[in-house]
């Protein structure tokens, strides 16, 4: 369902409520489903707005390492994390500079480790570099820009992933959906009470 038709549907619903002061539950639930389905149609190939194709390829590989495919469950690439970061950066000069500079730093660092650039390095070379810049304890004048950039990239990849349909499913968030009643979560209660025997 396109965004426009969804909006029309919502508007009709609002008008119906205003006109009659009443709505049935079926209509209410329909809104939830429309909202949930609305995004599905929007997918398509992404054209970077800020990054060059080479930079985008590097960023996409970086996000893939931050949130990889896990036991067949899709990760950052399928969730389009690089595209979202590129979009946000296209609207924010500060972020744009962070990514342009940071991705260049990755290539330079990889060259000094014997690869052509970050994206074309072997997975072992890539993770060896990440094992250094993914931890503050490795802080050094040489690694400082890499550590700072990786903190940005990790934070925003995580944001992009867990706000995507794939990430929301991965974290198993079950809310924002209609229920006919609110049942007692007996299994969860039994679980937590067993773990706090003093209560």
């Amino acid at each position, binding site marked *: 369902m396109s965004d426009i038709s969804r909006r029309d549907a919502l508007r009709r619903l609002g008008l119906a409520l205003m006109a009659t*002061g009443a709505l049935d539950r079926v209509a209410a639930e329909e809104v939830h489903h429309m909202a*949930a389905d609305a995004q599905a149609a929007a997918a398509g190939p992404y054209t970077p707005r800020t990054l060059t194709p080479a930079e985008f390829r590097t960023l996409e590989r970086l996000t893939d390492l931050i949130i990889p495919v896990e036991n067949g469950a899709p990760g950052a690439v399928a969730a389009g994390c690089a595209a979202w970061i590129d979009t946000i950066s296209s609207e924010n000069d500060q972020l744009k500079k962070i990514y342009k500079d940071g991705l260049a730093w990755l290539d330079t660092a990889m060259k000094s480790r014997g690869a052509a650039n970050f994206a074309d390095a072997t997975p072992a070379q890539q993770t060896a570099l990440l094992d250094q810049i993914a931890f503050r304890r490795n802080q050094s004048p040489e690694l400082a820009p890499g550590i700072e950039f990786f903190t940005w990239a990790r934070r925003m990849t995580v944001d992009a992933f867990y706000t995507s349909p794939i990430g929301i499913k991965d974290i198993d968030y079950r*809310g924002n959906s209609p229920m006919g009643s609110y049942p007692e979560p007996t299994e969860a209660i039994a679980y937590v009470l067993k773990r*706090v025997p*003093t209560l």
Partner: protein
Amino acid sequence: MAQTTNTTVHDVVVVGSGAGGGTVTKVLADLGVSVLLLEAGPMLNIADLKEHMWPYQVSHRGAGARGQAYTGGSTGFTYSATYGGAQLEGEPYTVAPGSDFSWFRSRILGGRTNHYGRVTLRMADYDFKPKTTDGLGYDWPISYEDLAPYYDKAERLIGVTGSVEGIRSAPDGIFNPPGALKAHEVLIQKSCAKLGIRAVSSRQAVTTVARNGRPPCHYCGQCGRGCMTASNYAASYVQIFPAMKTGKVQVVANAMARELLTDATGKVTAVSYIDKTTGSERQVRCRTVVLAASCCESTRLLLNSKSSRHPQGLANSSGKVGRYLMDTVGFSMSAMVPALSGMPHYNTDGYGSHLYVPWWLWDKHKTLNFPRGYHIEVGGGYGMPGVGSFTGVVNRTEGYGVRMKQAIRDEYGTSVGLSGRGEMIPNEDSYCEIDPGVKDKFGIPVLRFHWKWSDHELNQVRHMQETFRAILEGMGGQVNAGGRGGRANQANNPSSQTGQRAGGQAPQTGQAGPQTGQANAPAGQPTTMGQQAPNQGVPISRGGAIIHEVGTVRMGDDPRTSPLNKYCQAHEVKNLFVADAAPFVSNADKNPTHTIVALAWRTAEYLAEELRKGNV
């Protein structure tokens, strides 16, 4: 400026469409009285509410249109029904040197009721007689018995969740069935019980049964975004839209009231307002006027209605208009509770919190070093992931890949928050007045705020700190550093960048406005939080931050000390009524909306009767 005056004389002109204005409009319309309702903002279209929207349905996903969540600046209220904030373009207010105050305003039909926390608490019998009880503050000119029938009416109309408990500090109402407690709420309840504290079902303005054409709550947990099925309460869709169907109500949107005009007898004859769509000034004539523009806006309107006959502003011979400004005392603390880690997932949304803690020491004040009391609102659960939800956990655990993901999973939903909401004693140092030098974009003089917390409030927060730590540690919680005024847990705020533990659901009041706990100072108004720790280092909320401002046009029997009588009618101007939180004499630890509605209902019935008798 061009002025347009329609010659029609309206029986009642209501200024403002929130809880007070919405109630007055609905009650009068049902009694057959015609109402002209002025609202400073636009009409609300329910289709515009973002109730069920997912983060990925907005291109920036809550980070702000220009990624402000990352590099600074307000991200706005991407998903909520909030239309407004502490900073409104071209509508400043000022704060006196040495004071710190935040004023949240909403410009939309229904006002702040579209998004507020919907905590619905009756004031207790002793709350109406605070001075008689402990010698501090002032008594109300009415008693619990006077207001109880109107609490009843409000609850029947609105629908309020809850359970009958027989607790004196928390009078029972007419409740519809509450939702079941969630797992973290069971832990909180049991931890409280070990400390001798009773926690009970929350009292929320949400109908869980079909009511007047409104379907029951569908437990989607997005109440702060407004409710497309009108299952929760907002003045717009529960009162004003139905009232409009009677044919008795005319709504004028985008009408920013400037001043009240009076005749030689001192009665109000017209309301002057700016038509924001054209920028021109207009007047509507009236037999009676009801101010319900919000506590401080109604105050501003009276103070700006100056004339040679009313040099201190209208209805202000007492000089008390603007005085005794109060907010709620706020403090929050959160903890990571290991027992919740690995719990079988379930939908924790419901209608927000299903548990709250009424004040439990109302008969123990001899053992305390502060007067009055507070209640506790609770938060927790698996909040909808948003921008910033997991920043805290990944910055602590570092690394990348599957191990990082597992850390996120382990911590998701383990955060529990407690928010204290307590009573402030009115004082002479907290008030608002007209700033002599600043006007808004409409040319209307703005308010200047003065604010001071006293030891009463600071000691209350110290008590909250000790109590909350005991409750949280009693359930094995690891208390997060600090604790602060405002909200317990911003983690499910899509624009949060606080890096707190992830996934917790904010307590209900938090949903009132994602950033209200730490609203920014208005432009050009540096706060005083700087050189030395304010408030003796006690992490009390900022004045105004809980958005419970009340008391600046108070009611009372003595015209020398109170602008309004016991029907919220101006002592000096018989056809002028106030129906928001301005008439409050105290600010009990009961969120004000329920009392605004009950009081406005009573005022509207009185007004209709006085109109019928020809007395006004």
